[in-house]
């Protein structure tokens, strides 16, 4: 394997390649003397503390990264005053938010108004539970992990609704209703996109999907690019990021469901939103880019660093789209979801089922069959995208015809009068 003997550190608590070792040792130690429920509670606590310890600082860095990257897109410097390179800016922001007065509208539904900033953390943290950081490194490697991910991320919308409704603010209510409508719509392509993977790999465990990719030496974005695209877009809609950030569309409804939240309550929403972006990036990396596995490099580099790198790449893509695209309108988003993403992903579920069946029943050699299927699927994806582009263009053509975009005219008063008289108005 490597130059030095890995076996010496393998499994020791200081082996940073598998951060689970420490918690495993502790639970084994507790199991020796304590009741079994204590050890499971301690494991759970350790896992959540570990996750919190990862997310907390990561979020602070992410705020800085996002602001800095967006600033570079926009040819600005971004935060550069507090700390080296502005790195302490998020800390300063957090301190400011904590010190700010927390206002609540007088007519707000008090209990429901105060709960969401806390409740929003529950799904935000639970999702991390099934994310595998390495071969054995996930808090809970459920055999229904994919379903768990979908179920938990679906509950978040309820909290958003609570926040928006209880604020007793019309912008907030609009934001909440938009969030709810969009979230339940985009859950469908999300489910279908993941269903292709589940059907093809034959497992619902998140780690199982990664292991399948490792075993077959292929990443799913090559096999099912359309599912990856659909999942990416649906995720960015669920995360309320541009071009689908209609539920907190700044130029329309101020801040959407969290309009009335000030101080650290807003800060919590913001933190969870960023945390969700991070975890969904991690899941995209896990499902479609192979997660902690990278063609054998995971033998040399700690698996969680590989996952982090892939997550960073996906996260950068999310920032990129956010920095580039304008926002869609709600009806356009809905029709894109139901008329484009859902049929396309549905077709790919069927494709995956057929290919899986062929693979299993014909007993083909996967090293040959999979590349062929990948090529077919990429071709299908390109076809679907081009078909969509053509349909979108024909939709565009159905709108008023336009010969040239803008004509240059050398006309003075006379020309204006002529147009005016043709139009039937004027004098």
């Amino acid at each position, binding site marked *: 394997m490597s130059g030095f003997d890995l076996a010496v550190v393998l499994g020791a608590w200081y082996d940073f390649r598998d951060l689970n070792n420490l918690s495993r040792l502790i639970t084994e130690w507790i199991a020796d003397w304590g009741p079994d429920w204590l050890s499971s509670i301690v494991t759970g606590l350790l896992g959540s503390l570990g996750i919190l310890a990862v997310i907390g600082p990561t979020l602070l860095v992410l705020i800085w990264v996002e602001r800095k990257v967006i600033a570079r897109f926009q040819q600005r410097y971004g935060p550069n005053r507090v700390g080296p390179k502005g790195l302490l800016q998020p800390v300063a922001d957090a301190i400011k938010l904590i010190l700010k007065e927390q206002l609540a509208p007088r007519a707000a539904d008090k209990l429901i108004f105060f709960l969401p900033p806390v409740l929003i953390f529950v799904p935000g943290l639970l999702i991390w539970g099934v994310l595998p950081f390495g071969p054995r490194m996930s808090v809970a490697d459920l055999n229904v992990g994919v379903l768990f991910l979908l179920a938990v991320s679906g509950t978040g919308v309820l909290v958003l609704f609570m926040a928006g409704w209880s604020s007793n603010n019309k912008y907030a209510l609009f934001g909440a209703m938009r969030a709810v409508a969009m979230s339940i719509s985009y859950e469908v392509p999300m489910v279908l996109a993941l269903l292709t993977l589940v059907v093809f790999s034959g497992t619902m465990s998140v780690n199982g999907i990664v292991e399948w990719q490792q075993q077959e030496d292929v990443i799913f974005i090559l096999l099912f690019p359309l599912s990856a695209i659909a999942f990416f877009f649906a995720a960015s809609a669920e995360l309320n990021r541009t071009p689908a950030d209609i539920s907190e569309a700044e*130029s329309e409804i101020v801040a959407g469901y969290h309009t009335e939240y000030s101080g650290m309550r807003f800060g919590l929403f913001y933190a969870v939103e960023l945390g969700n972006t991070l975890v969904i990036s991690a899941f995209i990396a896990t499902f479609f880019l192979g997660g902690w596995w990278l063609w054998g490099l995971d033998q040399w580099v700690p698996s969680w660093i590989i996952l982090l790198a892939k997550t960073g790449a996906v996260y950068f893509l999310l920032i990129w789209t956010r920095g580039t695209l*304008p926002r869609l309108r709600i009806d356009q988003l809905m029709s894109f979801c139901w008329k484009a993403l859902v049929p396309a992903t549905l077709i790919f579920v069927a494709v995956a089922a057929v290919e899986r069946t062929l693979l299993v029943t014909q007993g083909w050699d996967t090293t040959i069959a999979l590349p062929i299927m990948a090529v077919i699927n990429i071709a299908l994806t390109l076809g679907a995208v081009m078909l969509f582009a053509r349909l*979108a263009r024909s939709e565009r053509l159905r709108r008023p015809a336009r010969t040239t975009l803008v004509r*240059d005219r050398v006309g003075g008063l006379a020309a*204006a009068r002529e147009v005016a008289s043709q139009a039937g108005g004027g004098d």
Partner: protein
Amino acid sequence: MTSADDTRSALSGTIETLAGDGSEPVVVNLGPQHPSTHGVFRLKVTLDGEIVQDAEMRIGYLHRSMEKLAEERTYTQNIPFTDRIDYLAAMSNNLAYCLAAEELLGVEVPPRGQAIRVLFAELQRVASHAMANGTFINDCGAWHTPLFYMFRDRERVLDMFEMTCGARLTTNYMRIGGVAFDLPDELLPTLRSFLDDMPDRIASYEDLLMENEILHARARGIGVISPEMAINSSLSGPILRATGVPWDLRKANPYCGYENYEFDIPVGEQGDCFDRFLVRMAEVKQSLRILNQLIDNIPDGPWLADVPLHARPPEGEAYARVESPRGELGFYLVSDGSPAPYRFHCRPPSLINLSALKEMSIGGTLADAIVTLGSIDIVVGEIDR
């Protein structure tokens, strides 16, 4: 619990407000504090779901009583007020006011002064349109990126303003009879490099925005107004031209020697938000064209005619209008022979263009109304004065 009475009272209370499908309209106040009303302007929209049923404009939050104040000051002292009417196009406002005062006083502006005025009016148009298009894309929901791109160009224009007159926004540069200062030596090289860079910049914006499917979806066919409706509402500027009417005061009623420059009037075809955006982009190009013709042909000589500081114009009235970035900007002055105008009135293009907002936004969604408002490019200082 007499349910019949309950029903009746509940129904009689709701029946006027309910649409046919039993939905309840919601009145939403956009503003006066709202991210996309471009200042303290309030739009009261009645929504059925997301559909705008009614839009009511409430203005006056930025009223500073300028027209009344101006009656107490001399003609020259009034110039700074005009900066603050349309603070995104101070030069154009200076110009329009000075033209009116000059007409009243019968002053002839020296050729160098004319050329410098054109130069700055066109630079101002570039800056103002950059701002308008940037904020328009922002209203469409882009995350500030196009806005910052266009701010970059505006910044260079404002730098030129600063090096000439010391101010960036409220320039107070034009004077009755010309301009306050001569061009500094470094201005023309700066302008030349600006003119050299701009075509590339505009090309890159067009790459980014013209074929952007989302922008098309958001702006095409939205906020449409017909040419006759536009004319009847006395709209002007890019909104009118986007409907296909080639009405530009620089051609229709040339001032400051605009007849000597070669430029076209870009017009749209549909009169929708996207056309307004395109017309503004094209107008920036035309402005650059004018500036290119101008830069090597600025005549020498005085830049300010000899006008006494406390000039007393003869009794009479004057109306002068210019094509400001937002449309026909006019100043109407009445003199009673004293050093201060008897009446000072401004025809603000924003206010009159805004009057079409209701027409344009009813039937669309809330998001469309915001985009339409953004495409009108209002400056609240000009609406309320």
